[in-house]
């Protein structure tokens, strides 16, 4: 039993044309037992910046809370929403502080640059190594399955509806091959002026 597989999760972020999408499963389980099926993994960090946390649920919460704390102070000092690249550095710094006793949770960042509106996605490892993605970023116990699905469905310059279809199908089919993730899905489509949250019906096993 690996600590990364104690709770289980499936997280994916994809870029489109002037939009990004981030999607997660909604299972909260403790090893083989499922506790709830409507667990929120996505946290809002800014009007067009969202973070989803994979891995151990207690650390996912702690990291998200500490990140929001630092972000709030940043935005109070700077008086503007944070740039995603700067946010990635913030996440990286927070995780590396625990280099020799890490948080067993990795964030996936999805957002739009507040000024230019350019799509931005990033993934990390548990000690903060950032990977700024150009097409898609996946994480969780279904990470590998998601990689394969995304490779098949993603293409450049998807509009928001095509992006929604691509990310939804990638997530639903990948999580069906993972017993620790599933029981529902949430998809956030982030555009310059609005964010749409859609809840998908998935296989309930």
């Amino acid at each position, binding site marked *: 039993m690996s600590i990364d597989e104690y709770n289980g999760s499936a997280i994916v972020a994809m870029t489109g044309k002037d939009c990004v999408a981030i999607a997660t499963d909604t299972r*909260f389980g403790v090893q083989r037992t499922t506790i*709830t099926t409507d667990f929120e993994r996505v946290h809002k960090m800014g009007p067009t910046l969202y973070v989803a946390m994979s891995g*151990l*649920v*207690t650390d996912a*919460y702690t990291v998200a809370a500490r990140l929001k704390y630092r972000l709030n102070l940043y935005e109070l000092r700077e008086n503007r929403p944070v740039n995603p690249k700067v946010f990635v550095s913030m996440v990286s710094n927070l995780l590396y502080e625990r280099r020799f006793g890490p948080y067993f949770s990795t964030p996936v960042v999805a957002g739009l640059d507040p000024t230019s509106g350019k799509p931005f996605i990033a993934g990390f490892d548990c000690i903060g190594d950032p990977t700024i993605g150009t097409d898609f970023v996946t994480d969780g116990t279904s990470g590998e399955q998601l990689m394969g699905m995304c490779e098949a469905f993603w293409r450049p310059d998807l509009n928001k509806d095509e992006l929604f279809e691509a990310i939804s199908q990638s997530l639903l089919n990948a999580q069906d091959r993972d017993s620790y993730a599933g029981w529902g899905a949430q998809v956030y489509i982030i555009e310059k002026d609005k964010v749409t949250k859609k809840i998908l019906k998935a296989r309930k096993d």
Partner: protein
Amino acid sequence: MDFCIGIRGNDFVLLCEDMNAAQSIMLHKQDHEKMLDLNDHLLMTRTGNLGDGVQCAEFLQKNIQLYQIRNGYEMRSSAAAHYIRKYLADTLRSREPLEVNLLLGAYDVISNTPQLYYMDYLGSMATAPFCAHGYGAMFATSILDMYYHPGISVDEAIGILNKCIKELKKRLIINFSKFNVKVVDKDGIHKLPTISVEDGIHTH
């Protein structure tokens, strides 16, 4: 070896726990109350290590009451839940991790909503319409999946509870003789009659 269960209705949260106080093979007491009122609208039950449980529960109770003394108003249920979660998460990576799983039943008087929080010893937290801890949880959650519906009444919840207890008596190797039942609603915390397995379990 303990068991606790929580069921949330439209305007109440029902919490039930076994009343065994056991360590390894020795059963010290069969009428031990573990549930604790953290404040007027916050009820907490637990499973796990007996000593850690008492330490955790009393520490949290006193701090939540201190908040009330300092500020003049009750700590809100979601604030209390997050505070308790942080306490568990902080102790996890300290010298003395606490081996306690909690269920928190609360009634938020400001928004008039009942809330049930599931917390495990690592500090994971989730809200749920029903949940349980312990070996008994494996049986109870399946029964609740079948019979629970949103907006159940207290009587229906007790009926489902009795079904769970009947199942535990039949299929769980651990012998529980008594169950402590309490309800949180807008008027506070009320103790319901103890369910005693010897006196018969009434399923309705």
